[in-house]
């Protein structure tokens, strides 16, 4: 029993990190049908941005805010410069985002070099708790707490604010929202910024846990895709559920058969695609 609880906590930690990337991906896709392949890069830049702020100010809270802000700014810029001119050509939008991976990766290596940079766990969050006689780092608890807080915050934003209602309505039916006199294009930039901020915040929170290195983008993109496919593109709650599922699979399979963890998740995705291509909570499209 102890092992199960301990592994579940492990699974929740990675699951929530992937949720932060996947939720942004999913919202952006739901609203504007753009699948952002460069989303993993925003996660990575969140880590680097937070590390820079942390080294400069020594404040971890400022580091998290700085990382998320960097993600928001880059997300908005991406939408305005690279995505917006291509709304009439969806094929090229996808091709663009894949090419941006190369640009971001190379830029990161040019600025910070190819080697991992250590990211120290802030003093207040160091140490371990004992969970059923097993040591569990406090920092992982912190990740779980932040992940759940962000989920609740965005959920409140989507359900209780006017802007959130517009976003949700846009996901449901973009034309109808425009017909009601709302300039959806402005909302697009905002949602791209929000998605970028969520991914970058994930990267910032994950910093002390993984360190900053250029492979972060590629390593986290695939799990985020798996989460999005299983949860259903465009479904925020679906992302959370699927992230938990994928995180738990990763933890349990990773404990017993470490070689197979990611393979099992890919198999899980293939099964969902075969049986319910729209995902657990997604709606059938096109």
């Amino acid at each position, binding site marked *: 029993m102890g092992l199960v609880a301990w592994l579940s906590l492990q699974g929740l930690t990675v699951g929530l990190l992937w949720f932060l990337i996947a939720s942004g991906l999913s919202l952006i896709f739901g609203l504007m049908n753009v699948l952002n392949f460069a989303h993993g890069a925003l996660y990575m830049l969140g880590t680097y941005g937070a590390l820079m702020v942390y080294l400069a100010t020594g404040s971890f809270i400022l580091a998290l805010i700085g990382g998320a802000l960097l993600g928001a700014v880059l997300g908005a810029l991406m939408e305005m410069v690279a995505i917006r001119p291509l709304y009439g050509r*969806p094929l090229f939008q996808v*091709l663009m985002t894949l090419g941006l991976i190369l640009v971001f990766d190379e830029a990161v290596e040019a600025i910070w070099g190819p080697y991992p940079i250590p990211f120290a766990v802030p003093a207040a969050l160091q140490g371990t708790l004992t969970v059923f006689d097993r040591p569990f780092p406090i920092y992982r608890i912190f990740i779980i707490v932040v992940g759940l807080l962000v989920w609740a915050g965005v959920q409140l934003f989507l359900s209780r604010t006017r802007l959130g209602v517009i976003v949700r309505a846009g996901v449901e039916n973009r034309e109808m929202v425009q017909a009601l006199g709302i300039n959806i294009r402005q909302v697009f930039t905002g949602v791209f910024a929000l998605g970028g901020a969520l991914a970058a915040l994930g990267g910032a929170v994950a910093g002390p846990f993984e360190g900053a290195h250029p492979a972060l983008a*590629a390593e986290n993109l695939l799990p985020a895709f798996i989460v*999005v496919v299983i949860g259903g593109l465009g479904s925020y709650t679906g992302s959370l559920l699927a992230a938990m599922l994928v995180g738990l699979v990763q933890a349990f399979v990773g404990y017993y058969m470490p070689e197979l963890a990611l393979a099992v998740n*890919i198999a899980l*995705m293939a099964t969902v695609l075969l049986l319910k291509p729209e995902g657990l909570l997604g709606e059938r499209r096109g």
Partner: protein
Amino acid sequence: MVLEKPRPGDVPEAAGRLRTFRQAAGPGAVIALLGLLPFLPVLGQNRYLLSLLIGTFVFAVFAMSFDVLLGYTGIISFGHALFFGTGTYTAMLLAKYFAIGFWTALAVTPILAAALALVIGSLSLRVRGVYFAMVSMAFAEFVRLLAEKFSKITGGSDGMSMQVVPDWAYGPRHRVELYFLTLGLAVLIYLVLRRVLRSPFGRVLVAIRENEQRAAAVGYNVFAFKLGSIVLSGVVAALAGVMYAATENFVVPSVLGTETTISVLLMSIIGGVGTLGGPALGAVIVRLTGTVLSSYTERWRLVLGLLYALIVLFLPGGLAGLARTWRRKAPGRAAS
């Protein structure tokens, strides 16, 4: 009701023959020039240039295979490295564990690739558009992970080295032989692909790219044709992979990874999709600029990435498309 299927030969015979000649003239000249190159006095002795071109031929084949999907059928695959890498690994493993030579590998790999493409294609064709891109990427990553994890067989992330190419084309002293081997294969594959894409099969692929619903309404089995396109493209990519094994005699799991797919994407988009010449041209440009830029800056891929983004934004037909519009605007051609 029986609907007449479009036939490629529906043009007056003389005009058709003239057009065929004009269409064949450009590629023919390029091929002849490349064939003569090793006999030229200074350039022909330059082993560095020959090696560069050998690599270009391999990637030109890979880029053409990618274009069958992206340019002709309108399917975005972000996991195309899967087939390329499978070809490379198959050739290497066959040579290492079964002492099977290059020609047999060249014959066996397409069968394997076709089977793989059938399975993966029928799974991932259940979804379309960006979903397909995502799913194909996941499959490629899956196989890359396998190559990395089964390190006892594949050498893991350290890679493995093994002579795949026959002795007569192996090593720096036989560069010219390797040059002709890869050029010959590339030309052969180009001619076959050209023939297939101009056949009714190829026309249906283009019809699907232009309007899938209409193609289905006319009575074509869109799923089967898409699957056929994936198989064709997968087989050619795997052949490019075998050629890659023959030129490098070394492989690491990253040939199966997203970076390989990104390279082929760069070539296809910069060169121009929807024609076979475009991606081949793109392969030449990317390889050459890469070589030139890398002597100035370590971050040359950043330059290529930005060039790619600019082409996606402003020049959707790529450089081949630019050449086409330019030629169309030129005087004297307006009538044709």
